[in-house]
């Protein structure tokens, strides 16, 4: 099968490539990018004129809820949502039931994705057994089984000694430790950002310092151990600055930010909107500005969604007891393009943050349009306007604060391993 993508603006930040060209895919690999490729060479031609042709987008932070919590999402619906959003690879967190802290669960995820999924799935194993924060997981075996990173995402590794040993131990296997940085003693019973909105709504606040102190600790532990640290869903001005300074010192650290944290503030919680309840919480306008600056100057390496599907019954309750998180796979691309429209970042940087940036952060062998690379390609119409309608989301859960928002830009064709898995 030969697919020819004709006349699109090909942006491959992994090679600083940005020009209008044709791209040829043969037998699951990219075989040519040239100014003009003869249409006769292809079985299928995609007219991409006026559109972008980019490396398949990569989301290094999703929750597929499979195994164990399939009523929220499963590997089939989760990967379908991914490809609808333009993602060709996703890395899924281990907080499943059972926790992905052993090779059986990892292999289940990989096999299920291979057999029934729509895109590449790279499981992330747990740092500690059962994500209990006490005993290190068998990282070597997890790596062998296919995990590229470890994380106890959803909760921090509170014990400093355990985190130190995790960073030391992970070095033997060359895998990244992804940290959910949160000092639970400072979070207390908080349910949203600590600030004026929380005061007004009478809801308990989670202060930014709860995130920053733990980010600082983990960055320093990475510096001390030489381990490779990736800070998940950075949400504070202080956190961005801590990583910026650490990178300047040469610490082996990367970080990600989510579209909701660079788009919304805690004002979105007003009306006790449980679709705006997440962890880390939506922060202040100053934090949003700092995250945008971090995306622009290279401090933040990747945009990741923290796609967190929840059943309606888990959100349609009083704010305090609602589950944290939103679905993000189908809205990440247009929200990133909003940053381009606002002049915060340019288009190649936006593509980098969604492809080679995340690939590099977790060492995922994807994120390039290099010749002979696996043909994971996303064709994007940056001017396509659409409105977020809950019922139209592919994800099994519909918990998004962006319902009704006018979006500009969407994937029109998603190709994974040379196979068209989604088109609109």
């Amino acid at each position: 099968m030969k697919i020819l993508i004709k006349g699109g603006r090909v942006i491959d930040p992994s090679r600083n490539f940005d020009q209008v060209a044709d791209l040829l895919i043969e037998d699951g690999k990219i075989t040519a990018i040239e100014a003009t490729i003869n249409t006769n060479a292809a079985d299928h031609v995609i007219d991409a004129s006026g559109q972008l042709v980019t490396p398949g987008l990569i989301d290094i932070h999703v929750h597929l809820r499979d195994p164990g919590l399939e009523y929220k999402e499963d590997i089939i619906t989760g990967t379908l949502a991914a490809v609808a959003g333009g993602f060709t690879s996703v890395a899924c967190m281990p907080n499943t039931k059972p926790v992905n802290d052993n090779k059986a669960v990892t292999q289940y995820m990989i096999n299920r994705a291979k057999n029934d999924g729509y895109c590449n799935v790279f499981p992330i194993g747990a740092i500690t057994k059962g994500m209990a924060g006490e005993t290190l997981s068998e990282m070597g075996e997890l790596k062998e089984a296919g995990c590229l990173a470890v994380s106890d995402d959803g909760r921090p590794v509170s014990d400093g000694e355990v985190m130190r040993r995790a960073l030391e131990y992970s070095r033997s296997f060359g895998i990244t430790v992804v940290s959910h940085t949160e000092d639970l003693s400072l979070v207390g019973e908080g349910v949203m950002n600590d600030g004026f909105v929380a005061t007004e709504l009478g809801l308990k606040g989670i202060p930014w310092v709860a995130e920053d102190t733990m980010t600082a600790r983990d960055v320093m532990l990475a510096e001390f151990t030489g381990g490779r640290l990736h800070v998940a869903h950075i949400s504070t001005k202080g956190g961005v600055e801590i990583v910026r300074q650490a990178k300047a010192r040469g610490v082996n650290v990367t970080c990600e930010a989510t579209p909701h944290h660079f788009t919304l503030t805690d004002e979105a919680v007003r009306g006790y909107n449980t679709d705006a309840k997440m962890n880390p919480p939506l922060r202040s306008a100053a934090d949003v500005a700092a995250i945008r600056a971090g995306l622009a100057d290279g401090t933040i390496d990747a945009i990741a969604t923290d796609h967190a599907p929840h059943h309606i019954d888990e959100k349609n309750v009083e704010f305090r007891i609602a589950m944290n998180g939103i679905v993000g796979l189908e809205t990440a691309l247009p929200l990133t393009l909003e940053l381009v429209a606002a002049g915060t970042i340019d288009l190649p940087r936006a593509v980098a943050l969604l492809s080679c940036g995340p690939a590099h952060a977790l060492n995922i062998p994807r994120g390039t349009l290099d010749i002979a690379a696996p043909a994971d390609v996303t064709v994007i119409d940056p001017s396509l306007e659409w409105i977020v309608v809950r019922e139209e989301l592919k994800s099994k859960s519909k918990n998004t604060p962006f319902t009704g928002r006018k979006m500009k830009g969407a994937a029109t064709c998603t190709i994974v391993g040379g196979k068209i898995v989604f088109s609109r």
Partner: protein
Amino acid sequence: MAFNHKHILGTEYLSREDIQLILDTAESFREINTRSIKKVPTLRGKTIINAFFENSTRTRLSFEIAGKRLSADTVNISGSTSSVTKGETLEDTARNIEAMHPDIIVIRHGHSGAPHYLAERLHCSVINAGDGAHEHPSQALLDMLTMRQHKGEIDGLKVAIVGDIAHSRVVRSNLYALNKMGADVHLAGPGTMMPSGIERLGATVHYDIRAAIKDADVVMMLRIQLERQGLTLLPTLREYARFFGLNDDVLKLAKADAIVMHPGPMNRGVEISSAVADGPQNVILGQVENGVAVRMALLYLVSGGEQAVE
């Protein structure tokens, strides 16, 4: 002037004119409470459900008496007897209550926003009788009725509110309402009990009770929740009483004719000394008395207020 609110979710949503109307209406109801036959037929045939999912004695009693004096049929649900303890969601509880066609639900709930949640889903009127640390509008209104009785006008009064500001729904409701009525509000309490940005609701924040109380017309003390001891907010009640409690010496800093208020129940010897609690400046029982009149006014006004007081 017409009252255009179906629900009373908080004083945040009431205008100065609304508040004026509620207080004026309450004044007219206060007289009924002193009659030998304390009942008028105003809400005859109406059903009021008092759904108290959090412990309360005086507010529940006050709403119940208010409803009965207006001849409504009042039914009480409390947290321990409701299905909530059996795992039922608030939405299902709401649907079941709705199926019984009440006219008004008065709700007290431990979660901020719970009355808003119900108001969006129910056809009847919802009155917030206290939600989490958010609002307690009827308390603020009865506080203002009491201030008006003793001070004539609320406009221009210096009101000091002292205690656990962070966890107090009374404070938020009073801040919204007092500011709309032209009062100058000063808050004081330990730093651990002062929430972020509270001054943006229209208050001067102090960490020293004396600064807040100086030349005040009204001193409102808040209850310190003894169960919060050990949550690192306070080292000891003894120290709290010494530095943030109201006693005769501190009260002297206020105006000589200042009134002392407390939403109750009081911790004597903690936030307020017995001498002050029983002293000539306290109007605490007057607040309780006014509570019934204010709640009668709220029930009457959200019902449409068609019938005059007989």
